[in-house]
């Protein structure tokens, strides 16, 4: 059975601007993904618990309030603790270019600022998630 990938879109923290998240939800659904959206005001703990229950392939975090350097890595760490370290985490919102490197070091695989064409995000997810069946140890080493 060819099944769509399941993606969680979440807004951590107290930021209530959800238009961007809704745009992403719509774009991903139109691109053939199954998208779970948990709404605003999610704590990192709630996001990790949701990712666990829904067994998603990727988590997209949307934040416009500037707290990304605190909240995004916290979500990544909590997910690792839950055994979800191999779930892809990506982010978007108002994130200055100078913070992107730090976020990537902390495990955020992709950062998409305002104005990013949604096609780019779709392409990013497809590239990371539509892989062939699990790489053999040899191929995994070659990839690195």
């Amino acid at each position, binding site marked *: 059975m060819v099944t769509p990938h399941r993606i969680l879109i979440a807004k951590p923290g107290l930021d209530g601007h959800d238009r961007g998240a809704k745009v992403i939800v719509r774009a991903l659904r139109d*691109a053939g993904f199954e998208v779970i959206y948990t709404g605003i005001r999610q704590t990192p703990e709630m996001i990790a618990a949701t990712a666990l229950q829904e067994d998603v392939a990727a988590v997209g975090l949307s934040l416009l309030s500037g707290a990304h350097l605190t909240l995004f890595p916290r979500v990544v760490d909590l997910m690792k603790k839950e055994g979800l370290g191999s*779930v892809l985490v990506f982010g978007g919102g108002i994130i200055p270019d100078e913070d992107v490197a730090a976020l990537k070091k902390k495990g955020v695989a992709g950062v998409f600022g305002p104005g990013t064409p949604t096609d780019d995000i779709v392409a990013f997810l497809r590239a990371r998630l*539509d892989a062939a069946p699990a790489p053999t140890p040899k191929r995994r080493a070659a990839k690195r």
Partner: protein
Amino acid sequence: MTPPPPPRRSAVPRSASAVPADLVARVRRGDRAAVARALTVVTEERPGHEALSRAFFADSGRAHTVGLCGSPGSGKSSLINRLVAAARAEGRTVAVLAVDPTSAFTGGAFLGDRLRIQEHALDAGVFMRSLATRGMMGGLNATIFAAIHVLEAAGYGRIIVETVGTGQDEVDVAEVVDTVVCVSAPYQGDEFQAMKAGTMEIGDVFAVNKADLPEVERAVAMLKDALSLAPRRDGGWAPRVAPVSALSGLGVPGLCADVEAHRAHLEASGELAGRRRRQLRRELALVIARRLTRDAMDRVTDRHIDMLAGKTSDPVTLGGRLTSGRA
């Protein structure tokens, strides 16, 4: 026969590997990560799903399953949020399976029911899973029974199934759960709307939501009127109408009492056995249909359609050949 195309999988190693040997045991201990994994394996028919489904069938029938149907916007998800809180207040564990429609054009889905019950996300006594219909009619997902049995094996005593919500088209849920709650709201139609077939025939409890609105008494009266014109149900259960407000919580204890009363009635009247037999029949039918789809439908190629378009064969002939393993 050409082999099927390789399934599209995520690159996450854990999901492409074989099912861990201890997964069944871990689910039975209530390990939430194991429950999530098992749900994925059975709902996506990943390798090992048949063995898992066989194992968890042993646990079927342990839970009281409650289905919620009703048109979009009637407030099913918000009401489920209240029902979950009520169950937790009584010390019960509860699981929710919420189904939303897959887009026929893109294959994707917006699974938005979870949004309404996120306040329970960190409660270890609540498990919620969102599912897409993936082409199945009737407002449900074809693997719904397998998912229910996983949750039963994990010990959830009450399982709430939320259907897509087209309203009149959801008679299937009656063959999946023990108690059907039909949710409506005021201003959704006049007395003739209430008389139409479909949900009227399958509801055990009718919840008129948004009871904070002025029209609710009229909506309740119309429903009761329409129900009084219907023939008596097997076993003598008279469907109840409960005004509720998911927003304020008004009427929720009454709704819970009605759902409990239906369950008690099923057991006292002996009707539960008959209901369960219908569920088993439906579950078997779904498994058979899946096999036929995999073994026959998935082998349809453009060549077959060419034959039909050119009238060199016909659907009955080709259908017969494909379902008997030929063509």
